[in-house]
């Protein structure tokens, strides 16, 4: 059969895309104070503005530590979506002001990806943000996007951290101050910088018992005023020690043992060692970012159409090196825990297997495999977290690396004798939140998509069995399997 080329590849993507459902001059992701302020500012210039916030997220997603490290310490109240929605409005009066100003507001709506043309992609009709609520997903075009996605807590892997009751400071603050839905009473706080001190004071204010603060360094790290306030409240800071393990029962955490040997009764261990700017969307759209240790880690570098505000843009620079502090913590926790400590909860990867670059335990480990390690891998080149993630599965689970990405990078840095900055952070990918197939699915795609859809490239000669080439079977094959291309 002669192939008659038409100059058009009907299986190529051009023209098949679903159009955006709406277009706004400005889309703001995150309706915290910074996001609301950015939305109002844009509105005042006459722009059309959409403000989205994923909160309140469903109870199931909170159980998956979305968006914060809740550690399973939510009360049943978080299952009541109406109550949760009301709580968001009550805690954020400026939302009413934003709506009155004519800003389109969508709560319970996740921004899970941003797509725009650039190197390797020119097929998008316009730049879009992917949104989803509990029912469906859709695309919205924008002129400019402002990321106000906040920051989340660094998690720390110590023996027993994979139990209910080990959580982050930002999550604890959100459960206490916004939702009144914290399911604990006695909290041990890891860290003593301002985040830890402020969290302790908020906890006391909300009637909780603070069992103490734990600090790996020799002295409390936060501002003297906060340290004094906490001392006045009778809370002690245990210095020069890390958490060595956590003990628990059916309801989760019951006590923590410090590397000093001291055991402290508590139902919650709150990791308040550091906030990490939530840069998932920037990273997933291949936006520029830079490491700024004074501002909490990787922060977005502003672009003409993409900007970041609030904690997402970086913590306030108080001259404190957050990265160095976290490295001290990860080093101390690793030193006081056994190598078989789980580092990736979703995929049950131990620290030994991560640093041994070993496969998951459902695969065989023949002698050659056992002889491999990070050390042997480093002979081939610098440590790359994505490569090691694919081999060990650390960070490949359903939490999308929210719990272990940063600490894995820090362990790789420590083990390879490199600074944190030398380890390329494992990539974030869209959807940056777990989205069910049926929600992510485009149920209203244009007919052109189905017309262009082939299992692979739609090249009619590609799959003709070699035995059939030049026989009548070749034409039959093309006639049956290729209905458009080149005919």
């Amino acid at each position: 059969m002669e192939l008659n080329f038409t100059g058009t590849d009907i299986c190529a993507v051009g023209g098949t895309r679903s159009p955006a459902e709406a277009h706004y001059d400005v889309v703001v992701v995150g309706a915290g104070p910074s996001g609301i302020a950015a939305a109002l500012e844009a509105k005042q210039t006459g722009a059309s503005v959409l403000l989205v916030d994923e909160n309140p997220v469903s109870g199931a997603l909170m159980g998956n530590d979305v968006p914060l490290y809740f550690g399973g310490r939510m009360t049943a109240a978080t299952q009541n979506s109406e109550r949760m929605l009301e709580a968001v409005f009550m805690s954020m009066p400026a939302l009413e002001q934003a709506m009155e100003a004519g800003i389109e507001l969508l709560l319970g709506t996740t921004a899970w990806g941003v797509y725009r043309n650039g190197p390797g992609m020119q097929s998008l009709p316009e730049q879009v943000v992917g949104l989803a609520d509990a029912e469906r997903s859709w695309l919205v075009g924008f002129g400019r996007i402002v990321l106000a996605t906040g920051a989340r807590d660094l998690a720390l892997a110590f023996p027993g951290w994979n139990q209910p009751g080990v959580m982050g400071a930002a999550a604890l603050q959100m459960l206490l101050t916004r939702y009144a839905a914290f399911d604990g009473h006695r909290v041990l706080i890891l860290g003593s910088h301002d985040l830890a001190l402020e969290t302790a004071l908020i906890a006391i204010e909300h009637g909780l018992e603070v069992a103490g603060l734990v600090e790996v360094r020799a002295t409390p790290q936060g501002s003297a005023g906060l340290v004094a306030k906490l001392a006045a409240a009778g809370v002690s800071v245990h210095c020069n020690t890390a958490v060595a393990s956590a003990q628990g029962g059916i309801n989760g955490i019951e006590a923590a043992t410090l590397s000093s040997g001291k055991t402290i009764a508590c139902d919650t261990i709150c990791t308040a060692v550091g906030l990490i700017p939530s840069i998932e969307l920037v990273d997933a759209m291949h936006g520029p970012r830079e490491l700024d240790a004074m501002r909490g880690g990787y922060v977005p570098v502003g672009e003409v159409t993409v900007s970041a505000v609030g904690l997402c843009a970086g913590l306030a620079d108080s001259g404190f090196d957050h990265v160095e502090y976290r490295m001290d913590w990860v080093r101390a926790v690793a030193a006081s825990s056994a190598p078989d400590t789980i580092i990736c909860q979703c995929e049950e990867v131990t620290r030994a297997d991560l640093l041994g670059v070993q496969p998951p335990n459902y695969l065989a480990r023949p002698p050659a495999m056992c002889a491999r390690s990070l050390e042997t891998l480093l002979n081939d080149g610098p440590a790359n977290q994505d490569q090691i993630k694919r081999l060990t599965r650390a960070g490949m689970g359903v939490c999308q690396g929210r719990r272990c990405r940063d600490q894995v990078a820090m362990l790789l840095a420590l083990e390879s004798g490199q600074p944190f900055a030398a380890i390329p952070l494992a990539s974030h990918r869209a959807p940056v939140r777990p989205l069910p197939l049926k929600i992510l699915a485009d149920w209203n795609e244009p007919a052109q998509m189905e017309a262009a859809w082939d299992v692979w490239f739609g090249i009619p000669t590609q799959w003709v069995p070699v035995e059939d080439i030049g026989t009548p079977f070749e034409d039959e094959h093309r006639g049956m399997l290729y209905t458009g291309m080149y005919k």
Partner: protein
Amino acid sequence: MSGSEVVIVGGGVTGLSAGWWLARSGVKVTVLDKFIVGWEASGRNGGGASHYSSPLFDEEQRLWLQMDDLLGYPTEHQKERILIAMTERQWEQYRFVAARHQRLNHPVEVLDVKQVQEMVPLAGDNCFGGVHYKFGGHANPQRSVQAYAWALQDLGGTIHQHSPVTGFETAGGKVTAVKTATATYGCDAVVVAAGPQIPQLMAQLGVDIPLAAARAEMIITEPAPMMPLGGVDGHKLYGRQTMRGNLAYGGGPHEWIDVDEVGPAARPSTSLARNLARRLAELLPKAAHLNVIRSWAGVVENSPDGRPIIDRLTSPDNVVVASMSGVGFGLSPASGHAIRDLVIDDKCSFADINILKLSRFAGLEADWRERRGWTALA
């Protein structure tokens, strides 16, 4: 050729397999890769290993069953596949494919809906039926690529990552050395298996290799309960259930792009993830509640007829060029063997691969990409 030196340009699955095969024959092998082994399409694909249309098919099938043992590292290879039809038209097409397999003596069985669901419990009553391939299979691309790399090193081969090739030295009708920015590697023979970068590299030797690059996309879900058969295709999707349980699937429109000698500038994925999610939810409706947790894209090169190029050049006569035209992963055990044979014996020992020679493109029009619409969007 024992003791001689072969430089492999490109540490993808094809180059690494070729290097491993050569090292097994006592050749001193050096692999040069622009970044990290398997970073491009070799580590980003659907993991399929069932290329019945290829002259390398029998060898592919023979070898995959042994690869874990031969390499000494796990590849996650799993046997067999099933193709599930979701429309009447697909059912007609898939039964046509089944009949073709029967004619070629490939063991297949046509299944009704109930039989499909027994093998693929995530399938629903919405399917028309399926075709069970009692051959083929799938493996983990990233793990397999690293297995080749490590096995090659275990045999004394060397891999230089972060070492993009910048040029060649030639003398007496042969390539005598391969150059990077920092080093020159003397060689007796060269294998160029650099995927989309092959045309630019070979142009330096005055050889025209017709290949066009494109971007393709995949999605993956959280783990599902393990199914009796994980190699599930159909509904114009390709994919697999990983040994962890995740469903990894691709298919659908591709985007032609331009790639220069340093490789793809980026591998962005797009909202095509939504169209993939829809089809996967239709193919496996009992998995529709599962979370999608990642999507990604990879860049592959295609020859004008979509078939591989495996050829030893006449000038320079110590260069073997290898591109699997977008489907190199599954073929890799056999493609590496064929490349090894061409380098050492100038002839493939186990199959007639003349159809993969470059000479088939002798009359190719200069504007072959434009004629096919295989050009990058502006």
